[in-house]
């Protein structure tokens, strides 16, 4: 069977316009596709669409329209293109794409990397783009040789025919006049040479030799380095400052107020940092003065009782909830992203243009944000994306690009803005704190209902107000943006995702959400709402199993549909981890969770000494459709487990008087190699289209670990990070 893709049906628009000598085709993904030029378009190349071009020398270049932050899109998307071009991914050159409407995501409607969606949403798009190029190249070769198109095939980056081979470069002239095919035929999965098989990492060589270029490595001639002194109180602004001593320091060019923070501009980072410590600033503490994470927690506990909230899910009849009620409160703190590369950006502001070099997950949003902040038109702003030294959701935000642009605009210098680790830790957009009351009714030995009531701030409420300029036409008034933000907040899917829509079968299920209005800045953090809601749900399910005196695995299986993915991964992980037969002195915990359309189950094996939890082994089973690069899937599961272990064992951002108390890795600790357990990953074989892998490894870890702690100690820990009494 071959998969034929009807391009017309997909709003694939055809253009025979010859621009810059290139043959131009565009995808109409979001109804606003523009004509070429495409980003990084080479006038002598054959460019069949925004994604791919063949240079006059025959080099195939892919525009990487997703940001590489470690999750593997650099390799993954190239593998998709390589499959249809029948050439090794290693033979394709990859460039970071600049913004273009054709790179907008079909679900988010902006050019963004997030939601573990890059491979899933590019699976057809990139293969179609490559198949179109392949078809045009074959057609051109057939025309030149005067043979049937079917007698031409692609192999190792060349066109092969009965009499020999032709290089891509030799058919480009002919290819320019080849009509764009209405239909392209995609390679059948059983014929895949690279998808599902290619296990190299195309970005690895540069990353082991130090030549990979991250945003912080960008060199711009005569750029000055800037550091920003921000209010220690989130949202606070400078009232006045004294820079006399700082201006006398070596290399200092300028000290200026930039939107409430004080920028120190110097020849080098060290000089700027030294001078910054000599600036005295009087701060207005801003709207979060007197707010602390403790007062916010108390408020959430109060809101659980005082507010009824909004019903988010109700399944079954409330009358079915018979028997005794049990309820428990769970709670998680703010968390920082702590990417290894601190935030940074190079910005050059000219009279008619702004250019920014940085690593960012959402250049589309950043273009609008920079335009809004500087008064330039969006079309005057360009962003050159780089490798990201970690993203995890932090680099969806545009704050550091805007800062660099504003410092450059106000100081008059080309600026390289570099944050310190302290800046990064204390000016993040944190994983929200959240409190939930989990409750159930138990009749005899049967659980008759499962209910949850969440109190948490709304990421959407903060985010939509900031990004809606990108998403909506310019004529939409600001007031409407705020209204939309309010609407989004009242039913923020992130607050309850993972608690609702579970496959667990109980006679009555219900989830309610109460929004906490007051919060410090919050944002998307690897696995978002799932990061806490899996902990809530899968810990409480474990409690229900214990209450009804059932094995936690058997309890789950008996409340899941027969053919569900949950059952499949649970049964597999139980087998792989020898569930029920832990090593002597060790104890096991299990959890399963679906996120980003993938299902992950984990068994954690631990021992406890005093109040110290030692994690020995994590067995992880993932069902994520077809694994395009299986070893990258394994790496994402390993990384997800370790990211989640840091959060479960150590992670907590606390706030006093609107100021974040943690500052660097000594008081916001990361899991280290000596604490890392053995991690074993198994991928369930599947021919379904690929689903997410960047985030789904995170959510099940915390509950599996907490459940193991209960098995070991009898203590049910309902707060993260896990601390034994």
């Amino acid at each position, binding site marked *: 069977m071959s998969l034929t893709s009807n391009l017309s049906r997909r709003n694939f628009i055809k253009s025979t316009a010859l621009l810059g000598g290139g043959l131009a085709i565009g995808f109409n993904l979001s109804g606003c596709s523009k004509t070429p030029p495409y980003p990084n378009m080479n006038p002598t190349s054959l460019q069949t669409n925004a994604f791919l071009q063949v240079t006059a020398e025959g080099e195939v270049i892919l525009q990487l329209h997703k940001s*590489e*932050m*470690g*999750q*593997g899109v650099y390799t993954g998307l190239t593998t998709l293109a390589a499959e249809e071009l029948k050439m090794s991914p290693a033979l394709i050159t990859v460039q970071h794409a600049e913004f273009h409407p054709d790179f907008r995501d079909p679900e988010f409607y902006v050019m963004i990397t997030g939601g573990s969606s890059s491979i899933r949403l590019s699976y057809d798009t990139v293969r179609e783009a490559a198949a179109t190029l392949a078809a045009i190249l074959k057609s051109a070769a057939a025309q030149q040789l005067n043979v049937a198109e079917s007698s031409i095939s692609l192999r190792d980056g060349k066109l092969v025919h009965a009499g020999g081979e032709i290089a891509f470069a030799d058919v480009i002239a002919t290819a320019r006049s080849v009509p764009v095919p209405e239909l392209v035929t995609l390679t059948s999965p059983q014929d895949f040479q690279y998808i599902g098989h290619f*296990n*190299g*990492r195309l*970005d*690895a060589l*540069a*990353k*082991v*030799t*130090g*030549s990979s*270029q*991250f945003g*912080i*490595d960008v*060199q711009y001639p005569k750029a000055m380095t800037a550091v920003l002194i921000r209010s220690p109180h989130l949202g606070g602004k400078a009232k006045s400052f004294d820079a006399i001593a700082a201006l006398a320091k070596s*290399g200092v060019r300028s000290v200026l107020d930039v939107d409430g923070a004080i920028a120190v501009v110097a020849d*080098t*980072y*060290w*000089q700027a940092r*030294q001078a910054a410590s000599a600036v005295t600033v009087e701060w207005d503490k801003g709207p979060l003065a007197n707010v602390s994470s403790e007062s916010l927690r108390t408020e959430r506990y109060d809101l659980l009782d005082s507010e009824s909230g909004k019903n988010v899910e109700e399944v079954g009849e409330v009358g079915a909830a018979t028997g005794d009620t049990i309820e428990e409160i769970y709670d998680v703190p703010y968390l920082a992203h*702590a*990417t*290894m*590369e*601190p935030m940074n950006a190079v910005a050059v502001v000219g009279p008619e243009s702004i250019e920014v070099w940085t690593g960012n997950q959402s250049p589309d949003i950043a273009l609008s944000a920079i335009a809004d902040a500087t008064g330039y038109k969006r079309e005057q702003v360009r962003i050159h994306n780089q*490798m990201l*030294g*970690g*993203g*995890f959701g932090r680099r969806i935000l545009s704050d550091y690009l805007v800062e660099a642009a504003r410092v450059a605009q106000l100081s008059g210098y080309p600026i390289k803005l*570099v944050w310190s*680790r302290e800046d990064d830790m204390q000016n993040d957009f944190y994983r929200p704190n959240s409190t939930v009351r989990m409750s159930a009714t138990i009749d005899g030995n049967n659980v008759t209902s499962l209910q949850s009531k969440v109190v948490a701030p709304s990421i959407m409420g903060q985010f939509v107000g900031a990004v809606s300029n990108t998403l909506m036409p310019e004529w939409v008034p600001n007031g409407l943006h705020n209204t939309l933000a309010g609407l989004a907040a009242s039913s923020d899917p992130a607050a309850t995702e993972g608690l609702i829509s579970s496959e667990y079968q109980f006679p009555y299920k219900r989830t309610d959400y109460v929004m906490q209005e007051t919060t410090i800045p919050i944002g998307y953090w690897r696995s978002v709402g799932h990061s806490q809601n899996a902990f809530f749900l899968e810990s409480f399910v474990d409690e229900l199993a214990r209450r009804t005196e059932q094995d936690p695995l058997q309890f789950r299986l008996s409340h899941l549909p027969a053919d569900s993915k949950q059952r499949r991964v649970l049964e597999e992980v139980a087998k792989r981890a020898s569930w029920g037969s832990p090593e002597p002195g060790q104890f096991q915990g299990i959890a399963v969770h679906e996120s980003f359309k993938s299902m992950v189950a984990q068994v954690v094996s631990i021992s406890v000494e005093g109040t110290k939890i030692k994690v020995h082994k994590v067995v992880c089973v993932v069902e994520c459709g077809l694994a395009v690069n299986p*070893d*990258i899937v394994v*790496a994402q599961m*390993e*990384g*997800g*487990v*370790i*990211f989640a272990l840091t959060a479960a064992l150590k992670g907590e951002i606390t706030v006093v008087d609107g100021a974040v108390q943690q500052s*660097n*890795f*000594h008081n916001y600790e*990361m*899991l*280290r*190699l*000596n*604490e*890392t357990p*053995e*991690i074993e990953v198994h991928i369930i074989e599947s021919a379904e289209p690929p689903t997410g892998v960047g985030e789904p490894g995170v959510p099940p870890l915390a509950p599996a670990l907490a459940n193991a702690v209960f098995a070991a100690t009898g203590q049910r820990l309902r707060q993260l990070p896990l601390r034994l009494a």
Partner: protein
Amino acid sequence: MAELSFTLNGQAQSLTVDSGTPLLWVLREHLAMTGTKFGCGMGLCGACTVHLDGNPIRSCSYPAEFVSGRHITTIEGLAAKDDTLHPVQQAWLEMNVPQCGYCQSGQIMSAVALLATNQSPNDADIDAAMSGNICRCGTYPRIRKAIHRAAELSVQYYQPVTNAEAES
């Protein structure tokens, strides 16, 4: 101001910087050698690890004037002149270690230093030598495997060719 003269990856360097400037910023800004990374500025994360006369140091917290007259090796100086990778870099590739890659220069420099003094480290040796380097992506399990693999490669790499092999 401080006058600096030192050897960087085998090449003599002379320059003047502000007194107290950490070696990291001399490398990254004055010499545009950006393979060595800034992570924390306090010697807590190891992203800035380089070798001073073969020993690993945290360049973010090491005043550059202290390196005068001495030898510095950075990630850019590990591979041979013909671009043949160091066995540790080779092992890192074989095990697909890097994810975002930002911490890997420091990880590799720490691993090279470990293998220079211990040619067949066990897991406890690796734990002790590598726990000063943070990786937020969670590549630790692969780092452990890659160090074991590099130990094998190093033995092969440094083993003199026997007559029998040379003849075959």
